[in-house]
């Protein structure tokens, strides 16, 4: 079975919601839609307070090349535009909409499925851009930018990422089982943008047999490979997935297109299909609500902008023992600091965790066991990076491959001394960036 070459771990899968069909969550009483749900510059608001908006109407316009449009998730009135907690940990400009309950589509969006094969490449790319589609795996890179690599880079492999290697998360899994047609159509649309021979593959971990079988039925007739991958974390990281499927190694400072590859997420493929065939912007996504401390664990389709507290109310109750609510997966996700944070385009899961027993950071010293080196998929020495970060030797740390760390969390997971290795690396990255900013200023 295919897998990536260096490192990797196998945490308990805990896919509690793997067999729960996707439910649609009813409209909440208020939506808070951040203008920054993607990598790059936040969108520019194009609505004012008290404006009436329709479902799918543009409320934030992409500001610059790497930026994305933001749309109203339902029809209603703009209540306010102000900073609000964001699942990324900061405060971000957010548009508040009070739904009017009619849930009316804006003009031109409620149309019959169009035949995408008649569209030119420019039209397809424009439609993806207008719909505000971004990478839905977590980073939120604007999809239209990713699909237009520099002309000197020859793309010969398009990979769809169905690995979903994070424990607990099952949103992509259920999408693969429930809407394989949309996924394959989305993939075909993306593939049509590239000239020349193109290898198309869908990588799925072997713990999702039903998804592999379903997609094989739809994908194989269209010359799309479905690759079964060994269950190993971080199989779904871009560089590791490329290595697992093509054997190529994306080195330090390189991007996937330097090796002729483009990787897209399952949710992104569905969003591309919706955008191009049905003209619909990205206003909802599938979210896994899981963890030990919530009564009803499920996969739900929610509107972008629904607050975590509304989702808790829909999924029963969170127990008193919950001391962490994580947006994303347990390995790479972030604990949120307020339950008012909304679901954004990149929120793949919401986990309710009880780790009270762990208490405050209880770091002990490194015992040089080398397990972090063993599991690092990027071939780094995390203990060394953390030690140098602690000493604040920020010139030296850059020579140790700091920029190459993908923050997958494997090292922190295996460390017997419970050192916060990834956190120290993030700390070093922040201070290096700050120093460079100060130097250039």
């Amino acid at each position: 079975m295919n897998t990536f070459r260096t490192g990797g771990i196998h945490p308990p899968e805990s896919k509690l919601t793997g067999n729960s069909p996707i439910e649609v969550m009813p409209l909440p009483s208020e939506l808070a839609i951040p203008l920054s749900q993607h990598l790059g510059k936040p969108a520019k608001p194009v609505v004012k307070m008290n404006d009436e908006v329709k479902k799918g109407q543009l409320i934030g316009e992409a500001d610059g090349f790497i930026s994305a449009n933001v749309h109203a998730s339902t029809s209603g009135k703009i209540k306010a535009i102000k900073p609000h907690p964001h699942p990324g940990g900061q405060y971000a400009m957010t548009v508040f909409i009070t739904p009017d309950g009619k849930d009316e589509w804006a003009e031109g969006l409620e149309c019959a499925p169009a035949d995408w094969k008649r569209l030119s490449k420019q039209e397809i790319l424009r439609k993806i851009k207008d719909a505000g589609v971004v990478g839905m795996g977590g980073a939120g890179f604007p999809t239209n930018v990713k699909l237009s690599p520099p002309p000197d880079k020859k793309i010969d492999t398009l990979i769809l990422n169905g690995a979903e290697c994070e424990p607990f998360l099952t949103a992509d899994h259920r999408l693969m089982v429930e809407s394989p047609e949309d996924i394959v159509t989305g993939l075909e649309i993306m593939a049509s943008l590239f000239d020349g021979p193109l290898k198309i593959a869908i990588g799925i971990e072997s713990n999702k047999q039903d998804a592999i079988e379903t997609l094989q039925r739809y994908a194989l007739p269209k010359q799309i490979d479905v690759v079964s991958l060994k269950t190993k974390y971080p199989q779904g990281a871009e560089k590791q997935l490329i290595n697992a499927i093509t054997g190529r190694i994306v080195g330090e400072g390189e991007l996937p297109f330097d090796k002729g590859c483009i990787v897209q997420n399952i949710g992104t493929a569905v969003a591309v299909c919706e955008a191009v065939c049905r003209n619909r912007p990205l206003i909802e996504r599938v979210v896994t609500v899981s963890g030990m401390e919530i009564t009803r664990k499920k996969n739900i389709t929610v509107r972008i902008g629904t607050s975590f507290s509304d989702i808790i109310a829909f999924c029963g109750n969170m127990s008193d023992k919950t001391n962490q609510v994580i947006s994303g997966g347990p390995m790479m996700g972030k604990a949120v600091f307020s339950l008012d944070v909304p679901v954004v385009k990149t929120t793949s899961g919401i986990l309710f965790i009880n780790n009270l027993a762990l208490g405050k950071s209880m770091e002990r010293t490194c015992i040089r066991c080398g397990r972090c080196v063993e599991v690092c998929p990027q071939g780094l020495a995390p203990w060394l990076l953390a030690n140098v970060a602690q000493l604040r030797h920020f010139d030296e740390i850059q020579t140790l491959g700091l920029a190459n760390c993908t923050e997958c969390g494997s090292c922190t997971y295996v460390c017997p001394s419970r050192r916060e290795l990834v956190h120290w690396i993030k700390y070093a990255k922040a201070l290096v960036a700050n120093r460079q900013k100060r130097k250039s200023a």
Partner: protein
Amino acid sequence: MISDVFIPAVSSLGAVALALGLIIHFVSKKFHVEEDPTVKLVNGILPGVNCGACGFPSCGQFAEVLVETRNSTMTCPVGGADLAAKLGEALGMTMAEPKPQLAVLLCQGNNDVARQTAEYLGIQDCWAATQAFAGPKQCRYSCIGLGSCIAWCDFGAMRLENGLIVIDKDLCTGCAACIPACPTGVLVMQDKKASRYFIACNSRDRGAATKKACDAGCTACQKCVKVCEDNAIVIEEFLARIVQDKCTACGKCIEVCPTKVNCIRLENDLKAVKQKQAS
């Protein structure tokens, strides 16, 4: 037996050492660099902590440049006026007097008055905390209160008290090393004056949001602006600021400030604030 090994070993190593010693001696004579004795003198006067406040990486470099250029405007902020006089004496010229500065914290949001969002369990460092979220306090402009700056201060002038950094103004030399250590930019350098006021708040939020987050926040109510006879207080981005050149330290603003813990702080005499808190 032993002497068979011992004598040749000692004599051969001794010969090598002698040869190397002679080489070192001749090289040091041949390539001798005449060092200006004044550099050594000046270097001896300087504090020797290599804090970098003067803009040079070390005291030694400062001394070299000073002796070479004889630039009277070069100052050592740490040493102050005394040191400037000594330097002038050593160099036979009058040195400009340094404008002593002081690091001040524009925040009074200690754990009693600032409301928290979530408890932070990670690495106890401000920069590490900002990687997870905006900081444990609701106000995102506040002092995070995990004390990153303490480690950057060469003079031990900072300590953590009740979730807030306290700067010992006698120990602070104004070297500004702590400024880049703060992720929220709530530490700033200000002129050291005998008596002066400053607004100890950094919140750029609107008044209502500031009040919700902290009892000691400036709500931009304009009361101090109206009462100030010297027009020394301006409000920018929902935050009052005292123009230090105009302020005569009359203390009228302190009396009108409505926040529970007074935001306007008098550096030398905190009596007024304390009285107000007691009443």
